[in-house]
């Protein structure tokens, strides 16, 4: 194979070019420009050290709210969302009637585009003809009808519903892991008189724990990328009630053309991502190979 050494760089080149253009160079740029006062109008590019960071952390109420929303959403998503998905996986691995149908249909909201989901929920929550208000009206609860996505009190929980319940990825992954567990193990426990609940808790759960950890990481990353579901439904409003970090970054960069500041938010998103990942890895002891 020696004579083929020449081909190695040729084969690696396309992937490396993509990596450089879309990941490496932007990553360097995002860090460098976060130390600059860099905007379009007035056209400016001056080094200001940590000023962007200081302003962001100490005197920007929008950032405070966007940051808080993002963290709350990560927390909700990593717990409630993953719990729902895992619970369903624990039901389905015993292969009850119809389990395959449930697995497939539960995945569908995850494979269609977020903007379609956003449009769907914009209509479901529509105060005039939306399903939620129609249902409330039908059972005589008119007083509970709201303009769900556009009232301050209901916007946050309503927009959360556009992603919270769709845990198809979690279910699929945990289920795949559970189905790969050696059945003789479960059989042995059953012979020893363990109840099905005990089997789930003491045998199955430890076996799939790492996979659950992976889905928690996926859930957290998903929340850090979340954009179109909010952009299309509430646009971050009312005021900034449903703004998250990506949305704030978009508005700062593309609407206000305040690039340096926007990229400081970008650096924050990366840091939040790293911290969450370390915490989750620790919590699920993902790096230990204990079985």
């Amino acid at each position, binding site marked *: 194979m020696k004579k083929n050494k020449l081909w190695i760089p040729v*084969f*690696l080149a396309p992937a490396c070019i993509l990596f450089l*253009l879309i*990941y490496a160079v932007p990553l360097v740029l995002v860090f460098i420009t976060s130390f600059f006062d860099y905007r379009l109008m007035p056209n400016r590019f001056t080094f200001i050290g940590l000023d962007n960071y200081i302003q962001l952390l100490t005197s920007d109420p929008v950032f405070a709210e966007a940051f808080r929303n993002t963290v709350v959403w990560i927390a909700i998503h990593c717990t409630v969302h993953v719990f729902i998905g895992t619970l369903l996986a624990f039901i389905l691995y015993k292969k009850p009637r119809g389990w395959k149908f449930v697995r497939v*249909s539960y995945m*569908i909201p995850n494979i269609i585009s977020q903007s379609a989901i956003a449009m769907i929920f914009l209509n479901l929550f529509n105060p005039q003809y939306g399903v939620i208000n129609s249902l409330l009206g039908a059972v005589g609860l008119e007083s509970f009808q709201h303009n769900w996505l556009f009232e301050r009190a209901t916007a946050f929980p309503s927009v959360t519903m556009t992603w919270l319940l769709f845990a*198809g990825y979690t279910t699929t992954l945990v289920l795949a892991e559970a189905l790969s567990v050696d059945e003789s193990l479960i059989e042995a426990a059953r012979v020893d008189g363990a109840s099905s609940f005990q089997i789930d808790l003491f045998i199955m759960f430890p076996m799939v724990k790492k996979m659950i950890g992976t889905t928690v990481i996926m859930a957290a990353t998903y929340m850090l990328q979340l954009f*179109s579901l909010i952009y299309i439904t509430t646009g971050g409003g009312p005021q900034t009630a449903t703004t998250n970090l990506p949305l704030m970054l978009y508005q700062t960069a593309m609407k206000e053309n305040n690039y340096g500041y926007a990229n400081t938010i970008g650096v924050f998103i990366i840091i939040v991502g790293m911290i969450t990942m370390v915490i989750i890895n620790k919590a699920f002891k993902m790096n230990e190979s204990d079985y």
Partner: protein
Amino acid sequence: MKKQLTAKEGVLITLKYLFMLLCVLVALFPIVWVIMSSFKTNKEILSNGLALPTQFNFNGYRDALQISPILQFFSNSVVITVISTFINVLALAMAGYVFARCRFRLKNALFLLLSASMVIPTTSLLHPVYLVINKIGLTDTKTALILVYAALSMPLSLMIMRSTFQAIPPSLEEAAYVDGAGFCRTFFQIMLPCAKGGLASAGVLAFLNGWNEFTFALVLTSSTSVRTLPLALGYFTSSFSFNYTAMFAAITIAVIPSILVFAIFQEQIVNSLIAGSVKG
């Protein structure tokens, strides 16, 4: 051997099926509702959001196609997604093959670097990517989105392709080399056909990622001749505000291809998800 169910067990089983039913409802109801509404008239939608359509009419689809350039968006989406998927799969099959089979200096470091892109939330790179695309003169072109989408699915495809090639027995290539085939020919004629499963897994996921992507499309494009279907839906909030039937029809048009691809490639999608999740 079947013993009588106790009351407690009965309740548990009922709860179990109830939960399954609930999950299916939550997942399917919104989509079914949209498809159903796309056949109703505006008046029917406004008078009762939950009622079934009294008759099937396709006016909504006709209007959606007439009022907005949705066909243009659709074909843009097809062109961009198909080409970017092709580039993604080919580039990472080549790289994955080299990582699986060859030995060279800094191999592990390079692999780590390339797969590290997985942990970066790409929205954080929104503006710098825009800058780069601007600098190389691709603002508002299909090529820009093709490049970005090919890169966004990179880490996952790399993992999938490397493990696919690792699983193929080396004896196959050795036979090819003995027969005098070169490195390149061996790869394209012997190895690629053997890696069909992995190519499909990586390809399907890259396709869905590209087809559904919104954020970069929004930032990197502005003209109708370039923009993609997910963006077209965003327009509907304003320009379609009085033709609900057409809006529901447009959502249906955007959703159906994803569901079809999923229906056909279910197995590959599950496989590639599992392959992609092995990163802890």
